[in-house]
């Protein structure tokens, strides 16, 4: 039972990372524009995140070094500091967007004023984080996020074209007529699946849960199962976009549109499940980004940290995530649309991604640090291939954003 519950770290990490506000709308839009044509990016992103999540977990367990300690030691203080600032700015923007998303869902559920729900939602999250220990945080958000399965069920219930689905799993160089838009969405989906805060949260979680080298088998299982589940749900969103929106010439640009798609073939109860599942995933993403901000800061400057410790034992860590939530709330209150914020974070997240993944690959392949748990040749080759892909996508992200005006069809 304990092992089963241990999987919730992977589930929460993957759901909060894969199925957050940005990915929900982004993937539905990709389906509405290119049908099944971008499914391959979900497969690619899933394999990449499994490879790197496993590596991060292994490094955290064996070297007792979470991601940002690795970043500092391998990139040096200056470049490490740049990475820290950029990563935490992205965490902040993403957290603000997720808080905005939480307010939208609560408004759709209750009809109460959105601004009041924004503040209420942020305070409720802060209270939950203060009250709950790490393992209960991951269980709460990981298990409640499973309600998102309603999206996959809806996608199957609408009878997808399985042949087109299978063809979509194979990479294509372009789509007729709109190559820039196609690659913008390809890079965006890939980036959203590899958001830095996932590996920051996952590696810190492995240390929070006192994993030892004996748990390394479980590490691979947790990383794989969580990511496979997240990718199935992401594929479900893309299928819904292809079946519901593409034939009707709809470009879904609202969170509520994607939620409505999740319950499209069913009645009110499915709509409620769709709302609650999305709420759990988005709240999970808000928690991940706020905590990741605090983990990054403390790990980089070597302050005491840990959600499984009492707040007064780790004052800087506790203050850091509280400040992250407070600043995110302030940004959300400015009235910026959550989807605008998250679009920015997805594309800029891609730009700094190599700086997060490169140090992880280096440490995981270093026999002096990892001993017998060093990367196999296969791990290093596949990790390097993905690092090259990440770097190419990082180089293309901003030009694609400019050319397509943030993916406007």
């Amino acid at each position, binding site marked *: 039972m304990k092992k089963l519950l241990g999987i919730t770290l992977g589930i929460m990490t993957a759901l909060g990372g894969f199925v957050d506000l940005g990915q929900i709308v982004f993937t539905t839009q990709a389906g509405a524009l290119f049908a099944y044509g971008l499914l391959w990016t979900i497969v690619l992103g899933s394999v990449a995140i499994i490879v790197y999540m496993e590596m991060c977990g292994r490094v955290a367990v064996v070297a007792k070094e979470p991601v940002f300690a690795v970043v500092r030691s391998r990139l040096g203080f200056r470049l490490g500091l740049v990475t820290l600032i950029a990563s935490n700015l992205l965490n902040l923007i993403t957290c603000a967007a997720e808080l905005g998303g939480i307010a939208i869902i609560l408004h759709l559920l*209750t009809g109460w004023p959105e601004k009041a729900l924004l503040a209420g939602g942020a305070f409720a999250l802060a209270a939950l984080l203060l009250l709950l220990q790490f393992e209960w945080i991951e269980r709460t958000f990981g298990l409640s996020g499973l309600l998102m399965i309603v999206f996959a069920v809806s996608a199957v219930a609408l009878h997808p074209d399985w042949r087109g689905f299978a063809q979509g799993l194979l990479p294509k160089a372009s789509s007729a007529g709109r190559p820039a838009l196609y690659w913008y969405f390809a890079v965006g989906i890939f980036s959203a699946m590899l958001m830095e805060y996932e590996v920051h949260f996952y590696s810190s979680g492995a240390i929070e849960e006192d994993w030892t080298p004996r748990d390394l088998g479980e590490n691979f299982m947790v990383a794989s199962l969580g990511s496979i589940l997240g990718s199935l749900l992401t594929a479900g969103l893309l299928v819904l976009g292809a079946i519901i929106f593409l034939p009707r*010439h*709809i470009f879904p640009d609202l969170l509520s549109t994607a939620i409505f798609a999740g319950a499209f073939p069913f009645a009110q109860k499915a709509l409620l499940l769709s709302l609650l599942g999305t709420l759990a995933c988005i709240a999970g993403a808000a928690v991940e980004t706020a905590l990741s901000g605090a983990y990054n800061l403390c790990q980089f400057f070597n302050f005491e940290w840990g959600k499984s410790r009492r707040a007064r034992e780790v004052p800087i860590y506790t203050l850091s995530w509280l400040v992250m939530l407070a600043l995110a709330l302030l940004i959300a209150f400015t009235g910026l649309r959550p989807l605008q914020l998250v679009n920015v974070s997805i594309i800029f997240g891609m730009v700094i991604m190599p700086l997060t993944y490169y140090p992880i690959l280096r440490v995981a392949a270093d026999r002096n640090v990892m001993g017998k748990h060093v990367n196999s040749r296969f791990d290093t080759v596949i990790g390097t291939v993905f690092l090259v892909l990440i770097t190419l996508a990082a180089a293309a992200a901003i030009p694609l954003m400019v050319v397509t005006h943030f993916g406007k069809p």
Partner: protein
Amino acid sequence: MLRLLATVAIAILLCGCSRQKIVSPDDLRSDLTAAISLASETETFINYVGQQRATSNFTEGHLAYLAQTARQSAKELHSSTPVGSIAQQFSATQKAIDALAYQLATMRYQLARSPSAADSTRNLGGIRQTLQQIKASL
């Protein structure tokens, strides 16, 4: 030096704010695509609501977001000027998007209380067809 930089920055900002956006044929095509999408989505959603499958809070909330999007599009279009060659289509688009924004604003409250009012889709269908015709003429 700082004061000079601040003055220049404010001047650039004010120029940027005060200048009307020039709409090219590609811009107008993109605006039309978004408006057609909005009209089509509203039709689809109203049919869904008509089958009693949405909660009243969701119906009212989602229609409010759709209405807000339409209002925003209409506002942006009114603060823009077209390049000469598309003046006629631009004006027709303005009218159609205004009609869409008005339709969405009025049906929002009505539909949340009376989900069977699926008749509203007839007007929306007309607006969508008009938008499609304008797009085809570009």
